[in-house]
């Protein structure tokens, strides 16, 4: 199954999930409002176990809270950025079982059985940066840097599935990550560098 199919399925799953829970996740405000209205209702267990960056975390999460909010505001993993909070920009991209997903468009309760990797979990435990991170530094790829964690996550997922992508394949795979500074070419060069195609 390729990345784009997974992304579509994930967004569809998210929408179905929102409909099921009665929340309207059209904006950040909507999610918060829904979270408040739903908290404590519906008989759903709030205290859940998540596996984030290889570590098991017990977290008290309302059933309508998004993964982006849980990561940032409950687990203090602020490397995941919220640029739009409505599935448009990709700044909040994380890996769920290795597949890139917009964390703003995934309900935390839906990843209880999944392996979640955020930007904080990309480098090795000894602190060695991932090849993508090293390549992005070498290419001076980030500009303002706000989209960069999401770009890193998409690039990591791409190279895991396609270790030597063409530039066009890389552009396609990362096209869900908006960069308002327009550093696309630098990120693509970073992907090619990380895959050993340029030095």
């Amino acid at each position, binding site marked *: 199954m390729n990345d784009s199919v997974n992304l579509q399925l994930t967004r569809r799953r998210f929408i179905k999930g929102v409909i099921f829970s009665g929340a309207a996740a059209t904006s950040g405000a909507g999610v*918060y409002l829904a979270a*408040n209205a739903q908290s404590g209702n519906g008989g759903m267990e709030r205290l859940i176990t998540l596996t984030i960056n290889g570590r098991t975390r017990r977290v008290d999460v309302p059933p309508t809270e998004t993964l982006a909010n849980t990561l940032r505001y409950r687990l203090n993993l*602020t490397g995941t950025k919220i640029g739009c909070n409505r599935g*448009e920009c990709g700044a909040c991209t994380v890996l769920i079982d290795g597949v890139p997903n917009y964390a703003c468009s995934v309900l935390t309760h839906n990843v209880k059985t999944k392996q979640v990797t955020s930007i*904080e979990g990309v480098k090795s435990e000894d602190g060695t940066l991932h090849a993508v991170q090293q390549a992005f530094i070498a290419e001076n790829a980030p500009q303002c*840097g706000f989209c960069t964690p999401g770009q890193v996550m998409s690039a990591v997922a791409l190279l895991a599935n396609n270790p030597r992508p063409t530039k066009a394949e890389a552009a396609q795979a990362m096209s869900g990550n908006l960069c308002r500074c327009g550093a696309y070419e630098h990120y693509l060069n970073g992907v090619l560098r990380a895959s050993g195609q340029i030095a």
Partner: protein
Amino acid sequence: MSTHIGFDFTPPDVPGKVTGEIKYAEDYKREGMVFARLLTSPLPSGRVVGIDAREALRMDGVLGIFTADDLPPVAPPGNPALASEYVSFVGQPILAVAAVTEEIAESAIQKIRVDFERRPFVVDPLESLSPGGANAYPEGNTLVRTQEEGPEGTPISGAEIRDIKWPQSAIDALRAGKEPVGAEFTTEWTFGDLDAGFAEAAAIVEEPFVTIGYPHHSLESRTCMAYWENGKCYFHGSSQSQSANDNGLARMLDIDPANLVFINEATGGGFGSKIGPYPYMAISGNFAKRLNRPLQLRITREQEFYIGSARSGMQGWIRMGVKANGKVSAIDLVVVNDGGMTGAGSGNSSAQHVTVAYQPENMRFRGISIYTNTTPRGAQRGPGQNEMAAVLAPIADKAAKAIGMDRVAFRRINAIDSDGFQGGGQGPVTSAFVREALDQGMRTFGWEEKNALAKQNGSKVRGLGVGIGYHGAGGRGYDGLVRIGTDGKLYIHSGVGNLGTYSYAGTCRAAAEALQVPWERCEIVRGRTDKHLPHSSGQGGSNTIFTHTRTNWVAAQDAIAKLKEIAAQDLGGTPEDYSIGDERVFATAEPSRGLSYAQAAARAIELGGKFSGQEYPDDINPITQRAVQGLAGSGLIGVAKDNIPGEGQPPGILVGFCEIELDKDTGKLEILDYTAVADCGTVVHPKNFENAMRGGAVWGVGLAAFERHVYDPQNGLPANTGLYQSKPPTYLDVNVETKMGAVNIPDPQNPTGGRGIGEPTQGAAAAALASAISDALDGHVFNTAPTTTDMIINHLAGNDYSTKYLKTNTF
């Protein structure tokens, strides 16, 4: 010989960006922090009649509301943090609610009842100028400068909102592409003899044009967090600038700037919308003070669309006269700006672009900026210049064609050089080498070779374009501050903000170069006021490279002078007998006799006075004075105001060449090649230069082909508040490798040779793309920015619906 300038390095914040460890304003928490949310206007125009927050205030966890009554009144066309008497656009903040959680604050917003009184509204400037047209404010539709006679005949300058209407004949003429005879303007200037210039012309081109404003869409919305301790306000804000915020933000908070600590490690984009303190900062700081709690006001994506500012639009007309030899003899320009609710039109900057790009022998500019009930407008990457570049390029192509001249040759004949001028005042420039840039670009792009190729390939047609981008690129008179520590390291204190251009780091290299300190022995000190940062310019207007390589250079020169004085004092002779190198100051005639920088710093502390910051120059800014006071006694201090002599504006100029393939069946265009060459003096940091060039090209594509405000004219409602609907270019829209170069001739008024280039990178790309679209369609001039796919396909179908009447801010 350069050691730092012109070489690549990794700015110190890059690793934190790829690991997610660097902090933006919204990433900070504080013990006891509470959360505020905004209630915004659903109306494009009106006033608040009443607010009933009783039910919200009874909710558990709600701490209070904050309204316009809690802040000093702001009269139109000021942009108030919170509106009451003048609600002037959909999405304008009306009040804020604070609660112990963001969820409760948001729920409380839903329980507040606001009664409004509606007023007429307008989203199209020409509609407002028409007889009987609605005004954005009850007082009128434009700002007029006034001058009254004060005491003892002293003139008092002011401004007031007035209602200006044009005769219907003038509106009709402009919409039909003719001069709006009988129209009233608020800005006018002329140089030369316009009539004589047109009389000399072998060809005259006359065209209307419209450019549509659009939001900055900074990916980090302008969330702020503030708290107060011991009378000081600690303020986490998203800003392009650092020290340039100090005085304005302190005024908003009604405190002495010495009691403000502004913290801004990284900023998620600004593009002109976050140069200085923005009105909404007043809410976080003052609400936090009232509640005596740390308070975070998080701004949503939709709210960022509303309050995050936008580029002004234009409806205009131009007449260009060209002599047989290609020289532009006369230009007559009319610009009606769409100033949104703030009236921030940039017509004069648009006219300035015309002067630099074509150096007309005679020119007249007439402009007026009209308020509309759309979002606040302000500086956006090359404001005025870049949108003018986009619509002007095809018009210039038409003029070149009229006299049978190659389009690049036409630009070359009219190119500015070091003796050229900019603006209506025909002010000088520090240097300019645009002909060299055009020649280099032509060769790299293969202009002549590509022109010789066939244009048509089935339903697809190739188009070639050339464009020029320009922006003033440098300031003077700011301060530099460096410290040599007793560890021998060079600490470069920078009040420059980190907006993602890395100019904060590039400019610090000037101090390292002057003092000949290896980069790994340098540390940039920045990011929060209490790190003792000097007075710096705002990070806007492509100025930082010129402005702050100079400030860091002069601070380093001051440090060098002190090093030599200390050496002479301790080791004999005069300061002139000493040199620096290898992190030492030593006798030129006897290099073994000297002091290491570490030793000299220790001696500076012992000597005190000017050597370690107890004394400082009289002419440095109070912000720098405070910074030096904070550093006093901690090392050898180099501090100086940039008094480097010189005059004229340092220009940043870029030329772009674009090749596209346009599908006549679908209107879709693909960029096949883009080449850009900069005239920005010495390139300070090559890798980052590439970043600016590529990012600017993406922005140019957005300006020329995609991005625009869309409002429902019947209800004044914005239709594209999200990113997808607004269409900033994505990876798939700009899948072309930018080829780039630089003339790389040092600017004589900068010791390190550099000028800025950030903004023209967009203008040149937009102009080159617009020129290429026109070329692909046999010279058809759309006169619109953006020229979207629907406009192209409608033109090909013989339907002028999408481009007629100079309509703006609508479908």
